[in-house]
């Protein structure tokens, strides 16, 4: 119910009318709040399994018309490195939550070749189930305007160069992230 003020008529403002007007304005302000349409995600892990959540969440945010930014720091740089296909791996060592085809002793998981096997098993299982590959998710992010920001400090400390990263990647620091994140309702640390 909206309060109508006929032009020329002098309105009698009752408490109820004022409350109604305030309620409507507040609701309108919430609807228009840009922070409700912003998502800032930090991606700090560099294994294949953990590459999926930030990219999927960023894509979903963009698909819902939100402004999304993913800030890659520490090992998360692996995801946006030009060589991500080789760098992203998954290891069964110390990963008791990882589903295994057969029960496996911990010492067995650290044998040579196990990491490579676990990585290729994950890739082929995901492909068979119809999950988009990392490459495709990166394309979706870039095409739908998700900002991919690489942490300048990590680049410096780990000895990378800006040219090591995919086209379209921006470079920033904690200040840049905070400035975006403070105006975003969705802030996630992966």
């Amino acid at each position, binding site marked *: 119910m909206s309060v109508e003020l006929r032009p020329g008529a002098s309105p009698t403002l009752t408490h109820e009318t004022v409350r109604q007007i305030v309620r409507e304005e507040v609701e309108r302000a919430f*609807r228009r709040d840009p922070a409700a*349409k912003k998502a800032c995600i930090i991606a700090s892990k560099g294994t294949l399994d953990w590459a999926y959540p930030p990219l*999927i969440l960023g*894509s*979903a945010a*963009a*698909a*819902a*018309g939100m402004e999304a930014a993913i800030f890659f720091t520490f090992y998360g740089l692996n995801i946006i490195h030009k060589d991500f296909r080789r760098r992203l791996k998954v290891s069964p060592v110390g990963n008791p939550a990882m589903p295994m085809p057969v029960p496996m002793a911990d010492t067995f998981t650290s044998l040579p070749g196990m990491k490579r096997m676990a990585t290729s098993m994950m890739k082929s299982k995901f492909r068979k*189930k*119809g*999950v*988009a590959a990392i490459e495709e*998710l990166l394309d*979706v992010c870039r095409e*739908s305007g998700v900002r991919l920001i690489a942490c300048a400090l990590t680049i410096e400390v780990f000895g990378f160069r800006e040219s090591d990263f995919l086209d379209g990647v921006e470079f920033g620091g904690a200040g840049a992230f905070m400035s975006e994140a403070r105006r975003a309702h969705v802030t996630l640390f992966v």
Partner: protein
Amino acid sequence: MADVKEDRVLDCRGQLCPMPVVRVGREMGELEPGQVLKVLATDRGAIVDLPAWARDTGNELLHWYEEDGHMVFYVRKGSDEVP
């Protein structure tokens, strides 16, 4: 309800999250307000994803049902303005 005629069909069968929502979002961009998109999907997550997405983007999920091992969604485009 069951005799709403779709203007376009989008087949997302065999694709998992986030692709159904991503593709529906893209396809919607090419429809006129009021037009209806029929979406085929096998991703069980779409049952919750698509209505939530529609609500957030000012579109309307008309109805959905299951047949032959996949799901069928009818989504009508709202206005071009994002709410």
